């Protein structure tokens, strides 16, 4: 899922400062699951902003709404009849959501309340980690299902680098060295010989594309 983190309130406050009528719009999908942009978070943020405005003696009208999904037109459509009533939309969607809403309502002011962070795995309750960077050219099959692009600080295909110590990464002593994980796992499988191979440079064009990447499936069209 896409993870996000609420921006510091100070930053949000600054963004919404010029506006009198604000709709806080959550998203019921990914960001709801990582507890940053669902209905609850919308309630909390709206409440905090209202209180903040009162404390500063400003009159602001802040309403709440959570869409099932902020990156799909059919759900965004719920805003159609409302959007004119507000000066700004404060979106708790991921970047895709914010942009999707903005694209549909080009006249409206759409502000992001979240920092979209990464494709996350829910490691345990309250802990999300990044294991995939969507490079578009998955090689997990040869790396014992540990992604060196994401999980090695240097993205080495032929690691580990000389900084790996006690199974930890040189860049962060709390992060396991991805290559240690790969080696250990291959060792257990008796596949260490896979490491003898030199992996050629990656094809980053699949990640970077020519601007935004697209997937187009004709069979999925209506």
């Amino acid at each position, binding site marked *: 899922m896409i993870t996000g983190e609420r921006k510091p309130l100070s930053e949000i406050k600054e963004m919404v400062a010029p506006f009198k009528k604000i709709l806080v719009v959550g998203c019921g999908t990914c960001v709801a699951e990582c507890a940053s942009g669902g209905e609850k978070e919308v309630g909390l943020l709206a409440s905090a902003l209202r209180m903040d405005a009162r404390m500063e003696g400003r009159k602001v009208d802040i309403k709440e709404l959570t869409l099932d999904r902020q990156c799909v037109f059919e759900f965004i459509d719920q805003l159609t009849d409302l959007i004119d009533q507000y000066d700004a939309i404060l979106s708790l969607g991921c970047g895709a959501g914010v942009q999707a809403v903005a694209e549909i309502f080009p006249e409206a002011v759409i502000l992001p309340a979240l920092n979209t962070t990464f494709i996350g795995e*829910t490691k345990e309750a309250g802990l999300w980690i990044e294991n995939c960077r969507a490079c578009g050219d998955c090689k997990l099959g040869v790396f014992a299902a540990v992604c060196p692009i994401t999980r090695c600080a240097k993205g080495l295909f032929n690691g580990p680098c000389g900084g790996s110590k006690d199974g930890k990464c040189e860049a962060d002593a709390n992060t396991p060295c991805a290559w240690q994980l790969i080696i250990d796992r291959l060792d257990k499988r008796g596949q260490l010989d896979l490491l003898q191979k030199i992996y050629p440079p990656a094809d980053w064009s699949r990640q970077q594309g020519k601007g935004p990447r697209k997937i187009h499936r004709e069979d999925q069209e209506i």
Partner: protein
Amino acid sequence: MPPKYNIHTTRMPGRFQPVTKSGVIAWEEGCLKCTRCVKKDCVYKVYEKRELDTRQMLDSLDSVCMDCFRCVQNCPNRLIQKGLNPAYKVLGDQYWTPEIISTLWLQAESGRIPVSGAGYGGPFSGPGFDAMWTDMSEIVRPTRDGIHGREYISTTVDLGRKLMALEFAPDGSLMTRTPPLVEIPLPVIFDLLPWSPPGEQITLALLEGAKSLGTFTIIRQSDLDSEIEQYLPNIIVFIDKKPESLGPGLLNRLRMVEIPDGKNTIAIKTMLKEINPELIVIIRLPLSPEVSERALTLTSEGAEVLHFYADEFGLEHADKPLFIKERIKEIHLCLVEKGLRDQVTFLAGGGIAMAEHMAKLIICGTDALTIDIPLLVAMECRVCRRCKEGIDCPVELDKVDPEWGSARIRNLMAGWHNQLLEILGAMGIREVRRLRGEMGRAMFFEDLEKEVFATMGKRG
């Protein structure tokens, strides 16, 4: 045949979330955010409808959940549990139980009779009204279709003095002066409230309710004001000041008044009826061990309507109080024995909380009933009696919109009316007048226990 009595109902949601028996207790922490989350799966969409009412800090999880336990049982991390709602536990009291109150709310909101599945879940029997069962007809009595049928079941009763015989002049003209009678389509009159938050709004709601139902509300003389004048045809004035102070102007516009029983009861009655002969004077007397005697006296002295009242728990005023149903039974039988019962009309109230109490008390001998607390409950009262203690009403009854309140009262009465029809129908009785005193068509706990269980286990 008169047109079928029909109470118009409209769905009238509460201003507050209803307080329900149990709530959902769910930990978010540890939630796996299943794609097929048990919360998304909820048949009743409880979690989707989730909302917080800040006045009550009440989560809709507590009022929409239907206790199917599927989420409790299917959450992979067992994060969902159920708990008794603390606000539910403290609704009402031993008599006005949370179950009664919430059932009344439901009827007031929907106007429908409570229907549920899976049989009866309550106690085997209980005190008071719960210690009797009404009869049904199996196969050999006339057909009827209950509330859904085409046959007419009347719930109309007449209030007033009844004549036992008529005298005719030789020319055939009627010589007997027929006393006035008031017909009400439902054997229910709204009584003085034992307590309530202050405010005209509540009175207006009751009056509007009584008017639309074709019945009456008893209003204290001291509470009369110009605003409620338009409701005079549906008001029974309870004379709590000097009777003389009630001017002939007003008296002539009233159909019924009520006077407390006292030394000069009959004299006052006569005095009032001299001013307005069409007036019916109801005599209000508390239930007590001596009340049968008094009822006998009053009846023989010409009383028209006797209104017996118990306290809000249905108990009479005595050291060892008898429950209203027992005392009414006794009064009824006492008058029957003296051959006077048919001359007088009984009203009885106090502790009438459910539709079944209507039927049961009528079986025990009253003609009609007076109700009080259920009217407040219809308007969301929680029977917490905070108003009595001078504390603000938690559901702001004082601010009730009379229109809304009367609609809720009408809904509740529609529910009661239909339930009365169910009971009458099951018994094969076509009018509630014929239910009065039909104790042979009921089963009493004490009798059955004595007959069946008391002798058990004795060997040999």
